Structure formats: structure tokens, C-alpha cells
């Protein structure tokens, strides 16, 4: 285990993999973020919880380059960064699975895994004519999926639209894990899934963390959060209300802070 936070949630002795200070973002008159601070430490699973509309998705969109904050700073390994678009964040090693499933249903599993990062053939065919190497992409996709132990994805050439919700989510998570060299962000990865399928995704998340990849997990599913998270960022009304540890706080504590019934 990489993140035994002996010093409690406020441990600042290690440089956060990803940090943010004072993020704000407004959509018209709606202030989605009102100065959020954020830290993700090496090797940890940081859960982000909060009521509907608390700004969780907006926060992670700022972290992943899907949207640009109105103000505030982002730090990757302690260095200030700005992400103009999702590509920039991906290039920096941040992969995100969005709340709205980010897959192209008509394309097959392998194509989805490599979407936006297709492998070209060697030699002039790939260099000059930009021809893709489907065989290699399929091979790598197959290897990757089986290395992650996702048994449900059997046929890598199957169109994603023929898969169940859990399988699609597995594709999205597999994609993030394959290319996320720094960290992976998961926005409500189990929200649309049944109990059994959720269980599979939870297993997958734990596996990622065991491989040493830090994870930001947005979830409404308290039992999963308390089971998985090393620390919990509680988002409330566009701000970070508290950072708590599952070891020192109960689910009731968390909900109380989330709803404002209790100060942190």
C-alpha cells in the first residue's frame, strides 16, 4: 500500500500529483465553483463526494482540460500547468472517464481504446499514407484487456453498442488505465450500473490503484467510497467543505458535512 496517511488527511509532506488552488467557474449566473482547493497525493484513491450540483463534475472538467476555469491555478507534480483542451491534459498523463459515457458506440472495442491515439503502420504506408495498423491495435487492446482481468470483454472487434452498460464502462476504464501515466479520474463510474456490474468496476478501480496509479473517484455510492477511498474530498456549494478519512469519519459524518448539517 502506497498511501498510509499516518498524518491524517492533512498530510502535506508529499508533493501532490495534482493540485489546484482557488478554482472558480461560472456558467452564466450559476457559480459552479467558488474557489476550490484540491490535492491528489501519490498512489491514493481520493474520493470526491457532494450533493447534486455541488460542482464535482465541473471540478474534474477543470482538472482534465474539458473546460477552463475562470480563475485559479493547477499544479502537476508541483509545477503550474494550464490545460487548454482535453488533449493537453492527456498529453500530460491525465486520463478521465466522464459521467456521460465517453465512447463511440458504433466503433468496436479496440477502436474505442485507441480513439484519438491510433497506431499507424510502420514504413511509408503509415508514414506517408497514414494507414492504421489495425492488427497491432487489436493485439495490444486484447493484451491490455486481459492483463486488467476484464473477462467480460471477449471479442475486441465487437461494436461497443452491442455491449451492456457495465461492459461499456469497463471499456472506458480500460482506456483510461491504458494511457493514464500520471493519474486517472473517474466521474461516477458506477452510477448507471446494477449491483453486480458496479462490483466489477469497483474491482477494476482497486486493481488500478494496486498498480500504483493515483485515482480521483467521484461517486454518490457511499459504501463504495468508504471501501475504496484513502481520503475523501467533500464538495459543497462550489467549495471544498472538508477532506476526511474513512478511518476517522463515518458515512453519517460525511453526509452531514455534505449537506451542511455539520461543519467539518
Amino acid at each position, binding site marked *: 500500500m502506497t498511501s498510509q496517511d499516518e498524518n491524517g488527511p492533512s498530510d502535506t509532506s508529499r508533493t501532490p500529483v495534482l493540485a489546484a488552488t482557488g478554482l472558480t467557474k461560472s456558467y452564466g449566473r450559476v457559480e459552479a465553483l467558488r474557489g476550490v482547493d484540491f490535492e491528489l497525493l501519490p498512489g491514493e484513491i481520493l474520493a470526491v463526494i457532494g450533493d447534486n450540483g455541488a460542482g464535482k463534475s465541473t471540478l474534474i472538467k477543470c482538472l482534465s482540460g*474539458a473546460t477552463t476555469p475562470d480563475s485559479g491555478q493547477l499544479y502537476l507534480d508541483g509545477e503550474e500547468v494550464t490545460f487548454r*483542451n*482535453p*488533449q493537453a491534459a*492527456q498529453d500530460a498523463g491525465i486520463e*478521465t472517464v*466522464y459521467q*456521460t*459515457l*465517453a*465512447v*463511440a*458506440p*458504433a*466503433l468496436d472495442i479496440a*477502436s474505442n481504446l485507441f*480513439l*484519438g*491515439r*491510433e497506431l*499507424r503502420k510502420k514504413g511509408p504506408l503509415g508514414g506517408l*499514407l*497514414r*494507414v*492504421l495498423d489495425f492488427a497491432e491495435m487489436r493485439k495490444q487492446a486484447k493484451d491490455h484487456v486481459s492483463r486488467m482481468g476484464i*473477462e*467480460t470483454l*471477449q*471479442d475486441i472487434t*465487437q*461494436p461497443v*453498442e*452491442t*455491449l*451492456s*452498460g*457495465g*461492459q461499456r464502462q469497463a471499456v472506458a476504464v480500460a*482506456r483510461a488505465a491504458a494511457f493514464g501515466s500520471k493519474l486517472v479520474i473517474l466521474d461516477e463510474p458506477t452510477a448507471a450500473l*446494477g*449491483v*453486480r*456490474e458496479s462490483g*466489477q468496476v469497483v474491482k477494476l478501480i482497486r486493481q488500478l490503484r494496486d498498480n500504483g496509479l493515483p485515482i480521483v473517484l467521484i461517486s454518490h455510492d457511499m459504501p463504495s467510497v468508504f471501501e475504496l477511498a484513502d481520503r475523501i474530498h467533500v464538495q459543497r456549494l462550489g467549495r471544498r467543505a472538508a477532506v476526511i478519512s474513512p478511518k476517522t469519519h463515518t458515512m453519517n459524518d460525511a453526509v452531514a458535512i455534505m449537506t451542511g448539517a455539520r461543519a467539518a
Partner: protein
Amino acid sequence: MAENLVTAPAGPPSADAKSRGPGNTVQHLLHAHPSLGPLVVLIVAAIIFDLINGRFFSAANLSIMLQEAAVIGLLALGQSIIILTAGIDLSVGAAMILAQMVMAGLAINSGWPVALAILLGLLVGLLTGLIDGVLVTRFHVPPFIGTLGTLGVFTALGLLYANGQTLTPGPNSLLVWTGTVIHIGSFSLTTGVLIMLALYLVVGFILARTAWGKHVYAVGDEPEASRLVGINTTRLLLSVYLLAGLVYAIAAWVQIGRVGDASTDISSTLNLDSITAAVIGGISLFGGRGVVLGTLFGALIVQVFQNGLALAGVQDLYQQLAEGLLVILAVAVDQWIRRVRK
């Protein structure tokens, strides 16, 4: 299979469920090979028309059909790439006529070197694509509305520039080179037909084998997901409209070769015909589905119906009826194929 049964019994039945009826098999087949449907229609229609009139399958008649299909085939090709991105182009015909008048006008009225005039015509095609593309990507105008607007603009510009003239190039002009007849066996094709077939090959290859092609499908399928995986959707859409515009201008050149002159007095159904060919060819109006080979079949189907019904001595009216029914059938099949997910 064993794992599958263990891991996902609660979920919806997976697609490879064993209990797949014959209808389901057809559905999956069409899903995997979207040009199969139009190919079958094309073959069946051709056989029926030949039974009605034995001249149908003669080399001469087949040659004429291919020659007639060249222009609409090219327009439908450009149209298809745009429809694949879930767009639509109502300005195809107008863009083609404008490019055609510029080519012929510069060469004949302004005395430009013909090659240069053609080049400029191709640039005009690119420009029409750029305008449509900018409207859609920068100003976020829905393609239907944006290209409805440019349909009017391009039509007016073409009429203004042509000023009512019919421009007839000399028989040896490069302008009518696309009408040059090439004899292959007992078939007589034209350079225009070969240009069309070559462009289908090239575009089909690019769509199927390159990242750009994959991204065209992805953007048509799920634009937001495509953006989030890092595809520059604006640039991609712009390049799609540019390519389509270029193809329309090439169609303009082929049209001059086919007819032997350039005038604005061309069938006003070109816009709808190109959409008809694409839709009959299995390109989904919702984007992200279909292959341009299907569009080629679609364009040929339209031609086969026109030609076959004419040979059978049937009124124009029935040809419109048949085309209309085919479009409805194609859209219904598309809807059915989309439900493959459950």
C-alpha cells in the same frame, strides 16, 4: 462463454446470446456490412429490369447508365462524408454549378489558360466547403440551416456570374476532357466515370484505413465523446466540408464533359438526389454509420430505376414513387439496424 454467463446474468441479454433468430442474424449482418442491403437491391432491380426489357444488360445501356451516374455519384460522395458527421449539405448542387460557371467563364469569357481556370474552379469548390464548414463549426449553425442559406447564396452567385449564358468550350478543350470516351471491351466509359470510381476508392480507403476516417465516424457518432478523447472536432468537421467542396468542384468538371457545355440550367433536384443516393446507400442520417461503397450502389440504384423504368416505358411519376419508397425503406432499415444494441 462460461465467464460471460457468470459475470453478466443480471444485465441485458448480451449481443452474442445464443438465441439469435434469422431476423436477428440479418440485422447483425447489415450492421456489420452496411453496403450489403443496397447491393442486393441493386442486383435484384437490375435483374427485374432486364427481364422486362432485354436491352437493359447490354454493354451500351450499362455504359450510358454509368456515364449518367458519374455526376450524381460524385455529389453523393461529398454528401456522404458530411452525412457521416451527422450533417447534411443542401448546397451541393449550387456549389457545383457555381464552380462549373467559374471554370467555364474564366476559360471561355475571360480567356484564361484552361488548366488555370479549372484550378480556380476547384478552389471555388474548396471555398464553398470552407464557408459551409465555418458556418457549422465557428458559428454553430445547424448544417441544415447553414447550407440552406448557402444554397441561396451559391445559386445567386452562379446566376450572377453566368448572366444567363450557356458557355460551350471547343471539343478539344481540357474542360470537356472529362467526357472523353474510353472503350473497354464493348463498354464505353468516360474519363469522368473513371474519375468518379477512383475518387470512391480513395475516399473509401481514407475513411476505412486512416485515423482521420475513424474520427469522421466517431464525431458523427458521439461528438462530445470525440472531443473528450482529444479529437479536434472543429478542425475535423472543417476538413470534411473542404473535402466535400473539392469533390463537388470535380463533379462540376465532370458535368461539363458530360453535357459539353456549362449553364446554370441544370436539374434542381441535384441536392435531393445526392441525399437520396447516400441514404439508399445505407449512410445513416444520424451520422457515424455507413460506407461510401454503399453510396456508390445508391447512386447506381437511382440511375438503374430511372433507366430501367424508362426502358420499360413507365411514366416518370413511377420513378419518383419508387425512389421515394426506397428512401423510406432505407431509413426504416437504418432505424432497425441501430436497435442492434439491445
